[in-house]
């Protein structure tokens, strides 16, 4: 991996770049049905940090991204706050409360760049990459005609899009190049927050790695990266922290090194998801995720969970990074795997100084990337 350990990620005063609190999204359907797509999601993202939001398809992670950009359909009802900080204290903006005009003119592309799920569908099919990129450069940076050509070339270069492919149409691009074209568009506005929604779907492993490495490289300039993915290997490769979503809620929010390495996930669902990987136990979690329109009372994972008890009839709060009444402890881990417990770091992590959603803040314990060797 190419990323150097990150410098202290805290902005002045440890202010997070994005602070999401109790974000919920409900879809009202015909017949009075209600879909609870996202429930009570809270997290912080620091400048220069990469947070990976992982979970099964249909767990609400893409809805969350759409909510942050104000791109939800009309029957969606959003509550909570999503504070995006700006250069000055007065530039802070609640993305959930902002009106469409504000979002369209000052947020999308300018303060939040979106790397979309399927770039081939995101690009305009009847125009060349150069034409689309030039338009975006003109709109977002106000370059005049004389310098536009050069600025367009530079914009393509930032996403490693080859200049000799600029005059091609989207259908003439391979999956990897279409992805870079979409990334180039997302980077034009120098947005401090990059939101990547399943940016690697359908790419082969080499391209996945290259794509996420390139995204990660942009955090070196202090960009915050929120990557939404079902690809755990991609998340492990670039994330500082991981948020696991299940049935619209955050089940676990923790440092990537702890999650993928030792002590491992503490939420039984997160543990099951990781154990399902072919390089691990390759064993599926029994059952299927619940319907978001018909969630069970209490913990939504309880019907599939071997550790469930009567306590699980109430929804567990996210405390110390895990939302579970019976989280897996270091002792359980040692018993399961026969590891020497003495070498395992203390798992009873008290919430960091930054609070239960602890971003890097002033304290670098969470936000700093661990050197490669420590994650083996």
């Amino acid at each position, binding site marked *: 991996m190419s990323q150097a350990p990150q410098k202290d990620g805290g902005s002045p005063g440890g202010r997070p770049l994005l602070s999401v609190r109790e974000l919920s999204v409900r879809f009202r359907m015909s017949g009075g049905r209600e879909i609870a797509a996202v429930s009570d999601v809270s997290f912080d993202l620091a400048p220069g940090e990469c947070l990976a939001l992982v979970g099964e398809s249909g767990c609400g992670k893409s809805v969350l991204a759409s909510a942050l950009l104000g791109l939800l359909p009309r029957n969606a009802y959003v509550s909570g706050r999503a504070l995006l900080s700006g250069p000055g204290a007065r530039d802070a903006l609640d993305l959930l409360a902002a009106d469409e005009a504000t979002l369209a003119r000052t947020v999308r592309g300018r303060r939040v760049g979106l790397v979309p799920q399927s770039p081939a569908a995101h690009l305009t099919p009847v125009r060349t990459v150069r034409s689309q990129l030039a338009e975006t450069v003109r709109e977002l940076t106000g370059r005049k005609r004389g310098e536009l050509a050069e600025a367009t070339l530079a914009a393509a270069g930032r996403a490693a899009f080859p200049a000799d492919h600029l005059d091609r149409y989207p259908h003439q691009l391979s999956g990897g190049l279409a992805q870079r074209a979409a990334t180039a568009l997302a980077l034009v506005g120098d947005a401090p927050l990059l939101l990547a929604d399943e940016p690697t779907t359908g790419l082969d492993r*080499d391209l996945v790695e290259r794509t996420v490495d390139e995204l990660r490289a942009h955090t070196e300039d202090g960009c915050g990266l929120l990557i939404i993915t079902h690809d755990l290997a991609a998340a492990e490769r670039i994330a500082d922290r991981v948020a696991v979503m299940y049935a619209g809620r955050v089940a676990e929010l923790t440092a990537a090194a702890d999650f993928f390495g030792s002590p491992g996930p503490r939420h039984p669902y997160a543990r099951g998801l990781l154990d399902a990987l*072919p390089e*691990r136990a390759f064993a*599926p979690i029994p059952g*299927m995720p619940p319907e978001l329109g018909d969630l069970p009372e209490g913990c939504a994972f309880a019907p599939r969970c071997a550790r469930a008890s009567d306590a699980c009839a109430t929804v567990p709060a996210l405390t110390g990074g895990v939302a579970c009444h019976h989280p897996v402890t270091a002792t359980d881990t040692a018993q399961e795997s026969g590891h020497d417990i003495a070498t395992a770091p203390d798992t009873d992590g008290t919430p960091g100084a930054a609070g239960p959603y602890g971003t890097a803040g002033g304290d670098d314990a969470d936000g700093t990337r661990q050197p490669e060797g420590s994650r083996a």
Partner: protein
Amino acid sequence: MTRPTPPALELREITAGYDRAAPVLRGVSLTVGEGEAVGLLGPSGCGKSTLAKVAALLHRPFAGTVHLGGAPARGFRHRAPRAQRTAVGVVFQQPRLAADPRLTLASLIAEPLRATGRRAEAAGRTEELARSVGLGGDLLARRPHEVSDGQLQRACLARALALRPRVLVCDEMTAMLDASTTAALVAVVEDYRERSGAALLAVGHDRTLLERWCDRTVEMAAGAEAGTALRSARRAPADTSAG
């Protein structure tokens, strides 16, 4: 045994593609033994999906022959005789593109039974198939847009198993799916193979997955040329180191 059983699937010197002047594959050969699971690996655009389509008799090659259980394929696509066509089950990468949006999941699963005139046994068999892939309850009455990718892919796998194929071709079956659904679908395939002795050709780019899943993997390079033997590797003990 006096005679060795013929391989379940044998592709000999296949040249195939979409333009005769520039075929995607040239003279590629691949054999899947009876009951064997072979993983076909390769980067995007190397022609592995084209080879999978040829193996499933869904794409007529420019040259070369396909043998199923020792018998040469006597046609491709709609010209394939029913007995051969139904001996191969296929699961594609994108369930949304492989499912008729007008059908309920139950009808989707039963489609091969109806198409081969076995409507009478469809009801009971559909339930059995649905249960084997973990689908039940009101999910079966829904249409594709009302279910998740993972649920739809489960239905597509059930459909592929409906006629009890001797060979199963899975072309990037799990590329869109999360780790748990991937492991669940692989378990369904392996359970079926154990009961039926069917062979498997699993196409993909996830080396870790295919090496864990299959008896051996075969590597295809971009623009596979005549005479290039596909590199083959036996299954190694599971590598437990992450990443």
